[in-house]
């Protein structure tokens, strides 16, 4: 895609995103807020899995950590919610970095299991520390009202708030990945030995990528706690982590826009499946999954990239 086309597409998407909450019902707004939240989490996971080549089946754990950090801070100490999101991000950055250190020794499947174990353990651990987490009852929060007397419903305000966070994080991720650091991260995925020979500190970069990835997912978790206004251990089960990985692969590995496509998929396709067949909705969902992978083995973003490349090629051929 030429820079100009890309610019036009970007502005158009942004315009639609800004107009959306005034065009659809409050429930739909809530759903799109969820899409934005998922997109942040998927972008985080994509940095780790798509760009750095480390598979994680445990990002639900960091999502949970972020969500509970926010919920506990608001519930216990009445901390303003924007502050809790930053705290959740920092906490997950540290947790992810620390988890990334033992993960250095593991590759592929074994790393997948290690992270999977993390995802499995989370609901049990949350229930165990009942005093802080409210056990299986969870913690109920209230949705914040829009500030400065803005004429918005709480759902609309949360949508814009989440969208703003999403934009900031996406720009940051783009700059991180487009520069020297990004090249080092990708080099480690493609050939760790060559990367090391070129002077990349692979151990440090891998653990840092884990940390940043966890921080993104943690921020998403924190936002989800505020948007849904409720946290409970069973919402953070293994399937959440698997859903994240599905979203990343469907959206397109190693692609920033892929996070949005993946988020749309994991938010809306299960609902459609439910509408198509009440008897066996998950069978329909499975068929969707497999069908998408047949049609677009490199994800939605990969397919778009391919179509654009082909169009560009035809353009040059016509001019020549």
């Amino acid at each position, binding site marked *: 895609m030429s820079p100009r086309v890309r610019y036009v597409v970007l502005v158009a998407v942004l315009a639609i995103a800004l107009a959306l909450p005034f065009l659809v019902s409050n429930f739909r707004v809530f759903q799109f807020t969820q899409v934005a939240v998922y997109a942040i989490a998927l972008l985080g996971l994509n940095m780790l899995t798509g760009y750095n080549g480390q598979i994680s089946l445990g990002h639900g754990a960091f999502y949970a950590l972020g969500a509970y950090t926010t919920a506990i801070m608001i519930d216990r100490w009445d901390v303003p919610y924007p502050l809790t999101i930053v705290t959740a991000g920092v906490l997950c950055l540290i947790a992810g970095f620390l988890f990334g250190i033992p993960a250095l020794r593991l590759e592929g499947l074994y790393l997948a299991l290690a992270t999977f174990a993390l995802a499995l353990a989370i609901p049990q651990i949350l229930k165990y520390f009942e005093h802080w987490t409210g056990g299986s009852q969870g913690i109920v929060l209230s949705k914040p009202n829009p500030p400065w007397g803005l004429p918005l419903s709480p759902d609309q305000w949360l949508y814009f708030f989440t969208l703003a966070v999403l934009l900031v994080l996406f720009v940051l991720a783009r700059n991180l990945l487009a520069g020297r650091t990004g090249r080092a991260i990708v080099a480690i995925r493609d050939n760790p030995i060559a990367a090391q020979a070129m002077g990349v500190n692979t151990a440090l970069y891998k653990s840092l990528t884990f940390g940043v990835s966890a921080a993104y997912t943690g921020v998403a978790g924190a936002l989800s706690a505020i948007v849904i206004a409720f946290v409970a251990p069973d919402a953070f089960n293994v399937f959440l982590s698997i859903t994240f990985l*599905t979203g990343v692969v469907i959206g397109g590995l190693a692609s920033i826009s892929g996070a949005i496509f993946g988020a749309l998929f994991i938010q809306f396709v299960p609902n459609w499946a439910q509408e198509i067949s009440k008897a066996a909705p998950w069978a329909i969902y499975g068929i969707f999954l497999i069908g998408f992978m047949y049609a677009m083995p490199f994800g939605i973003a990969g397919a778009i990239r391919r179509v654009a490349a082909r169009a560009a090629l035809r353009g040059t051929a016509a001019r020549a």
Partner: protein
Amino acid sequence: MEIFFQQVVSGLATGGIYGSVALALVMIYQATDVVNYAQGEMAMFSTYLAWTLMNAGVPYWWAFFGTLVLSFVGGLVIERIVIRPVENKPILTIVIVCIGLLVILNSVAGWIYSYIQKPFPSPFPPKPIMLGTVVFGAHDLGAIGVTLVVLAFLYAFFRFTTLGLAMRAAAQNPTSSRLCGIRVGWMLAIGWGLAAMVGAVAGMMVAPIVFLDPNMMAGILIYAFASATLGGFTSPGGAVLGGLIVGVIENLVGTYVSFIGTELKLTVALAVILIVLVFKPSGLFGRAAVHRV
């Protein structure tokens, strides 16, 4: 001490189940380089087939072997139809297709057979066997025995038959195998068929204990995955032993470490596995992966 032995024995019993599912996982991994996330659901579906046969009045062992044949064919067909189109695609694409398969099988089983638990017969006598004061469930012992028999068969198959040799060759070096006249694609399909068969055995051994329902394998698959990793994904014997170790650790920790109890025992079992992995990154019995640079 009695309690200790009793806990070890019941740990071995559940461990045998984890081991047999882990064995099926390792089988597919060795034959195709894919970890099949749908393995548990395939086993569950096979068990439902067995249940259907038995309900129609077929005697246990006839139904047992009939199910094995059906499962083999089923595994073969699934590989040919579902997996083949993405065979040479990135590994994560295959993983997602397997997850798709998992939800389809689970949902279809629930649709056909409903989510109500069904009892499933055991071929072994219900009377427990006493050794001193320690009680062995006949079914538990039988299940471990069956797992070991399957392991022995697989070992013999891969070690002594031409087909087994061809399958190993196809997995290790597809290009050279193709040049030697081995039909690599079909070897993969047979690998899936065999794994479906092993899974069917595991399913029929689990069902009398946990009862038959579409979600019966979810928890077990997780433990099986852990067992296979602990034993090493390249070692079938290691997978079975890994299963037994996981079963025993889980039981002992649940019994003896009081603040952990039953709520955190999964967490602790997984933590133990992680610690092992940090020191032995390819599992206890796995070969370290060697890469050509």
